[in-house]
């Protein structure tokens, strides 16, 4: 079991706690407000993009890794980071191309897998 010694347990713990904490914020919003899931997702992605643009979210990513990038705030951060990178490389046009370029993998995967799932699967009754 060589690989076990190479695992950075502290890093995984930081990731777990940060990711969990971001989700808890979402849960409090669900339970305490009447926001629908779509509104909560929008709130998270916009917050992530703004914090990403201000450079604040970068600290969280450095600290927690996937714990900060996997939640939807990370998706927003990714879009903002891409837009800034685009501006650096291509100027104004980069603001338009950069964001989607950096998030392209995720968006394309979601569309493609969504289409495939609709081909092979059918909705089923919720049992409870």
């Amino acid at each position, binding site marked *: 079991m060589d690989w076990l010694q190479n695992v950075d347990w502290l890093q995984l713990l930081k990731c777990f706690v940060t990711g969990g904490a971001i989700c*808890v914020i*979402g849960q409090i919003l669900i339970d305490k407000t009447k926001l629908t899931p779509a509104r909560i997702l929008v709130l998270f992605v916009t917050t992530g993009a703004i914090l990403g643009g201000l450079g604040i979210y970068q600290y969280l990513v450095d600290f927690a890794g996937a714990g900060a990038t996997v939640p939807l705030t990370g998706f*927003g951060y990714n879009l903002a980071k891409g837009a800034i990178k685009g501006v650096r490389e291509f100027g104004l046009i980069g603001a338009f191309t950069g964001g989607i370029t950096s998030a392209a993998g*995720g968006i394309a995967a979601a569309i493609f897998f969504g289409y495939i799932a609709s081909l092979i699967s059918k*909705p089923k009754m919720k049992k409870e």
Partner: protein
Amino acid sequence: MKPLDSKKEYQNYVDKKSPNSPILKNCFNAFWVGGLICTIGQIILNICKSRGLSQDVSGTIVSIILIGISAFLTGLNIFNKIGKFAGAGSLVPITGFANSIVSPAMEYKSEGYVMGVGGKMFTVAGPVLVFGISTSIIVGIIYLIFNTQSITLV
């Protein structure tokens, strides 16, 4: 004051009558499921990086794999059970975004593949893209303005 005296009074009365969600239990479930999903992402990220892939490419691979798993579980009619249990724990990570695209695609299959699946796929997730992408463009433009005036924002 009686509850039916005014709309406001009735709303207050209804709020008192309505049961609250079990918020502690919900937060606990959201915490560990959300944390677990992120940790799975971190493990995939570490594996990718140890194979010599760059941070950006590894991050994209993490997104694609998590989205794939989420789409697969949605297709197997399992994701909604996880979602009912975990709430924001499965909604807030990228898995929730994937689920919100896959679930209407499956639901509206009955209206055909073009206007049903294609047209309705973004009924829930569309706003995420609209607001996320718009915000990123604004961020990029603001960055451009500050940068050309030699004020560094980042």
